[in-house]
């Protein structure tokens, strides 16, 4: 339920205006003799992965032009992106242009070009509304947000709200322990990401846990992107790819040049689990002959 989901919802919302969506991950500058805005126009689709936008819609008015993944443009083309987007919005000004990005330099550049900036915020009120919409009984919502778990801050992350709703709807007489929920859902999410290419689904989770422990031991809550990218990744992945996978899964948050766990308890929970999973060396030595 991040920016991509929001764009998809805007594209399919029941309004009379047409909409088109473009994945800027595929952006490449227009040919030298072509207007720069053509690089955007050729990416526009009537739906994600669908047919190209008809020219009569593009030349018309009142449509929603939704551009996703502006922060995932190939580095070699990134300097061409903002001029192309700006030129497209100026060439076809009768449409509403919405560009989604993580908080990166592109946001500031678009603001300078006259775009208004909005941010999706992790909200406790949203979390409560979400749990109630999922038909979680009010008493269980209250317990989850405040009394039993105190996970209100964590529930502002849609991934965890979604999974906690499932757990709260289970008629389990023993509610999940906060640490189990905290860590279990992180591992579950990394396992889903790992299915996209790793041979061992645990590897990405172990890499994530190592990152949490390393940060905690150094008293840090974030790492520079360059630091992380220089690390060896789990089997089958580079450090860069592992970072991107975890960001895509909302397990890491990245701002300009910095990566961190989206909430401090996520980092601390992984460390707590690592400690609990480590055999007590004194007990082991005393048991040895």
């Amino acid at each position, binding site marked *: *339920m991040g920016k991509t989901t*929001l764009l998809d*919802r*805007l594209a*399919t*919302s*029941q309004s009379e205006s047409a909409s088109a969506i473009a994945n800027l991950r595929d952006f490449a500058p227009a040919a030298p003799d072509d207007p720069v805005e053509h690089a955007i126009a050729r990416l526009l689709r009537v739906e994600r992965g669908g047919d190209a936008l008809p020219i009569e819609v593009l030349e018309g008015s009142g449509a929603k032009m939704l551009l996703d993944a502006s922060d995932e443009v190939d580095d070699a083309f990134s300097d061409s992106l903002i001029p192309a987007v700006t030129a497209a919005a100026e060439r076809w000004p009768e449409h509403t242009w919405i560009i989604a990005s993580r908080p990166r330099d592109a946001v500031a550049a678009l*603001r300078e070009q006259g775009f*208004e*900036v*909005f*941010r*999706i*915020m992790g*909200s*406790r*009120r*949203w979390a409560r*509304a*979400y749990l109630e*919409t*999922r*038909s*979680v*009984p009010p008493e269980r919502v209250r317990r989850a947000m405040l009394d039993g778990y105190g996970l209100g801050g964590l529930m502002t992350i*849609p991934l965890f709200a*979604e*999974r906690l*709703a*499932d757990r709260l*709807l289970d*008629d389990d007489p023993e509610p999940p322990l906060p640490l189990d929920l905290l860590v279990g859902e992180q591992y579950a999410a990394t396992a889903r990401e790992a299915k996209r290419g790793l041979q061992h689904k645990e590897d990405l989770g172990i890499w994530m846990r190592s990152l949490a422990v390393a940060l905690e031991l150094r008293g840090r809550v974030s790492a520079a992107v360059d630091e992380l990218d220089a690390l060896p990744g789990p089997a089958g992945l580079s450090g860069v790819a592992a970072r991107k996978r975890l960001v895509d899964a909302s397990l890491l948050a990245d701002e300009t040049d910095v990566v961190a766990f989206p909430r401090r308890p996520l980092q601390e929970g992984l460390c707590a689990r690592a400690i609990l999973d480590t055999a007590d060396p004194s007990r082991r030595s005393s048991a040895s002959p």
Partner: protein
Amino acid sequence: MVSVVPYAIDPDRTEVERVAVAFAPRADSPSSAQLTWVAPVVMSAAADDDEERLQQRLSSFDYGFGEQEEVVRSRGPS
């Protein structure tokens, strides 16, 4: 589709809760993956709005004291 479920009436209507929980959509069910959508909180961010200022405005919205007019809620389908 509407399911009509009889239940034993008690003062707290606990059966209603149990039925609601039983029928509630699960995120891990493929058939219900798209059922639940709650529009996120979307906030206008001016050039001089730093992180602390945004969090203050969010807290005002979350806890219901003032400044709610500054919060924009996207109007996706409900």
